[in-house]
């Protein structure tokens, strides 16, 4: 695994912290939404949008861009914040989340907001669509790659496994999937509601290349995605062990924060916990493009 230097990691950490604060402010203002999974995936999304993905926020329709499908659409606050912080749209718009007339719909919708590649929300539907993107890219001999983010809870859904079976059997090597393995779903722990372990072995049995990482370690997230590019004959599953609600003490690992917004007091507390960071890494330096 190739690493990243300390400076890069520190910068990514700053950005992720800003994104976490955005998530708190957005869901607090909306009075609803899903902060837990969003906070838990802030580091993975930061690594993707600020280091891994080949994209250009000023050209959201650039044909050669990598495509990110957020299959677990309910954690979209982290996607919206990542898009805004990388320059797709003004960060001021984030607080309109879930409001009437907002481009920031309760679950992602294509065509409203630059950078959103697909509608999602009904669980288990994203991987299949990413497979379709992968097939099209392959057929065209294109360099761009689809990335699919999934939750562990949505592994209960049959359509997801249809895509796992298909992608593994067809050796779709230009596909990278990252699993948010926080081991929590809406009603409680995944291993109690619908056990998934041994998850990595399941993927291997279906013909996938599998990497298990700490989803809060930027070096590991980046290394796993680079590793996936080097495996041409199999799709890659990166199982990211994450902490639901990461960064906010009273939310961490508590399934009640899957789909509950913080009230004003809770939001203030959360923002205090997320505060002791240097000033904002600011999006006003211009769009962040990885090419």
């Amino acid at each position: 695994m190739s690493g990243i230097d300390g400076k890069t990691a520190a910068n990514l950490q700053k950005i992720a912290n800003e994104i976490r604060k955005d998530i708190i402010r957005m869901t607090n203002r909306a009075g609803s939404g899903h902060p837990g999974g969003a906070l838990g995936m802030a580091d993975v999304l930061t690594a993707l949008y600020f280091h891994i993905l080949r994209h250009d926020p000023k050209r959201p329709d650039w044909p050669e861009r990598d495509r990110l499908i957020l299959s677990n659409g309910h954690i979209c606050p982290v996607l919206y914040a990542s898009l805004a912080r990388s320059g797709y749209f003004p960060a001021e718009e984030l607080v309109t989340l879930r409001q009437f007339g907002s481009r920031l719909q309760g679950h992602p919708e294509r065509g409203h907001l630059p950078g959103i590649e697909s509608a999602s929300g009904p669980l288990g539907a994203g991987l299949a669509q990413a497979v379709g993107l992968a097939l099209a890219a392959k057929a065209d001999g294109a360099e761009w790659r689809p990335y699919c983010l999934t939750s562990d809870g949505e592994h209960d859904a049959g359509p997801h496994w249809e895509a796992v079976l298909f992608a593994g059997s067809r050796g779709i090597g230009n596909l990278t999937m990252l699993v948010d393995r926080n081991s929590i779903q809406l009603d409680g722990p995944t291993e109690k509601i619908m056990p998934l372990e041994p998850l990595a072995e399941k993927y291997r049995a279906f013909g996938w290349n599998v990497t298990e990482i700490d989803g809060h370690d930027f070096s590991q997230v980046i290394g796993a995605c680079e590793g996936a590019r080097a495996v041409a004959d199999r799709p890659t599953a990166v199982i990211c062990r994450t902490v639901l609600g990461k960064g906010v003490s009273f939310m961490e690992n508590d399934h009640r924060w899957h789909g509950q917004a913080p009230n004003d007091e809770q939001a203030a507390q959360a923002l205090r916990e997320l505060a002791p960071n240097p000033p904002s890494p600011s999006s006003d330096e211009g769009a962040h493009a990885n090419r």
Partner: protein
Amino acid sequence: MAVQLDRKGGKKAIRTGFGEGLLMAAERDPSVVGLCADVTDSVGMGGLRDRYPERFVQMGVHEQLMVAVAAGMALAGKRPFAASYAVFSPGRSWEAVRTNVCLNDAPVRVVGSHAGVSVGPDGASHQALEDIAIMRSLPNMTVVVPCDATEARKAALALAELDSPSYLRLARPKTEIITGEETPFRIGRAETFRDGRDCAIIACGLMVPVALRAADELSSEGLECRVINCHTIKPIDRETVLSAAETCGRIVTCEEHQVAGGLGSAVAEIVVEANPVPMAMVGVRDRFGQSGRDSELLKEYGLDVEDIKKAVRKICSK
């Protein structure tokens, strides 16, 4: 003004016509691709598979996957046709049609073959009678039900060029060919196949030739019916429907589908608001199908020439 039909007879399955059209579309446009869920030859996709294997995706028995994969391909610039039996897709795949296809406005062509009781011996589980209803209720969706093999071929070619989601409904048995090369076909425009002023019969799919026979026979009883081939159920040709309501004052709809939510409902939605003339609907009345020969089943479910004649006579006696 009615379109001149060349009814020389001759029979071919509507699904076969689709397969021919798909192959022609693929020859014209390299971005046309086919996906199928393990019923490739039965839905007429064998030609594409054999001619352009690199543009055919065998999905296995995965209808939900097939539709979502097609959505991904469409968003990356391909022109996918995703085919199975209508009970499975859009039956089982409907939620993927809604989320991945329609909500994204992804130009996927969902092809549902073996629709209706005319599937025959396979029985109720394999006879889709609800697919028009579930597809025409989706925003962004176009719904096309061709009346014969020739029209199915034209529909495949036309849908290949459509840049929004669509559903093409096909039938299994060999049925009468009533349209020719010159018969006009445009998505969204219903064609008048026979003129008359006593009653309008608006039909789709394999009920169109049945409606024409009924109209011919009614003519000898002194009732002149206008027969309209309403192959596009969504967006429906409002102008042609309202002109029929105005001129004929009575409408009978015919479809191999539940009357709930199908062509008759689509026509009624227009008529009741704009010009509420008496209507009758020939279709399946809240029942599942069963095994039998297609002709036996069409009769059992009230989809025969006699059923249409009865409906017209009744509505004209009012």
